[in-house]
């Protein structure tokens, strides 16, 4: 069971409170977690990454275990603590503005 923390606007859009819990088939990678997230919550398609190119939206970041995974390839394995549910995988809306 992988725990995913979404930013407030995406929690509202997905109609969830708190963390999302996902079962990920096969190796838990950056890409497979996002695939599982979008399969369970299709309204999130396109809000985190492009629906065709799968490129991360510019103002969205991925953090886990105090690491910035935002620019890692999609097949990057997630840290063991995330895979075991000890730590969440965090989708973060970048702070921007003045």
């Amino acid at each position, binding site marked *: 069971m992988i725990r995913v923390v979404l*930013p407030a*606007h*995406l929690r*509202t*859009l997905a109609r969830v409170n708190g963390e999302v819990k996902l079962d990920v088939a096969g190796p838990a990678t950056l890409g497979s977690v996002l695939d599982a997230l979008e399969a369970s919550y299709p*309204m999130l*398609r*396109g*809000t*985190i990454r492009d*629906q*065709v190119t799968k490129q991360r*939206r510019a*103002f*969205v970041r991925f953090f886990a275990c105090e690491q910035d995974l935002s620019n890692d390839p999609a097949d990057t394995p997630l840290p063991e603590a995330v895979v075991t549910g000890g730590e969440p995988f965090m989708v973060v*809306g*970048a702070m*921007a503005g003045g």
Partner: protein
Amino acid sequence: MSGVRLLVGTRKGAFVLTSDGKRSHWDVSGPHFGGWEVYHLKGSPADPNRLYASQSSGWFGQVIQRSNDGGKTWEPVGNKFTYEGTTGTHLWYDGTPHPWEFARVWHLEPALTDPDTVYAGVEDAALFRTSDGGQTWQELSGLRTHASASSWQPGAGGMCLHTIVLDPRDSQRIFVAISAAGTFRSDDAGRTWRPINRGLRSEGIPDPYAEVGHCVHRIAMHRSRPEVLFMQKHWDVMRSDDGGASWREVSGNLPTDFGFPIDVHAHEPETIYVVPIKSDSEHFPPDARLRVYRSRTGGNEWEALTNGLPQSHCYVNVLRDAMSVDALDPCGVYFGTTGGQVYASANAGDSWTPIVRDLPSVVSVEAQTLP
């Protein structure tokens, strides 16, 4: 008793304002999609409880919402807007080629007879269509692949397709307007297009009379006379009596002919409304007095409508999609401002009352007349 529902899109969410036919007391609901930009909402003429909303964010992109109960509840539908085939390039602000990139949906235009069919005007300029209630969207790519498209350039707000007008007498005919390419017409349901900008004159482009390149802000039509179009251009208020084949200026005695919205009275096809703005470099009312101008002669002769509107220290703007009329008698006229006010007139503009004063900056206002 019949009533009115106003669909208000703002920089921080959508609001739904409802009233009975007297239009003196209004219920306000919202914000829906709080914190997101809502460029436009519109209801289906075939089913007034079927609404569509364009919700977007610089962080999370484009979402389309649909309501089947007049805006009480909403559900996200399809948001995949993919340009068809080769994307191609248009010109960037500096004149260099720039690939088409989807940014957002500016305008949603439900079809006149089918609640599941909707047209979407997007930035970078293109026209999309759904026929399954918004689940899937297909580009009508004949517009973006028009021979002139590689020369189109964005206006200051982006290269947006912001206006879609459907001809009520001819289901094959569609008008669109793009900033800053101009106005285009299709006579085959969106398959092929031709620019219809003859008679427009724009300073600031190399050829002031060019076939494309004009910053058209808005066009409007009365459904009883689809061959007559009115236009608020960047500068100049224009009129066409031949389906856009030619245009003539009808700015007449306006204090300034710069502005964004233009609309037509529901029952008087020669009565039109604009909101003059000082200039393209000062987007606020001339003399800091908010005035709607009405012409009862289809242009040229204009009267200022000021009763109930602020006549000092007013520095708001009224954006292109932020004016609408209802179909009651007398005709109701509504507009929203960048200062968050939505003004209503239940007497065709003779007097105005603010329904709300402190919404987020208003981007769009659509009036629905309810049975």
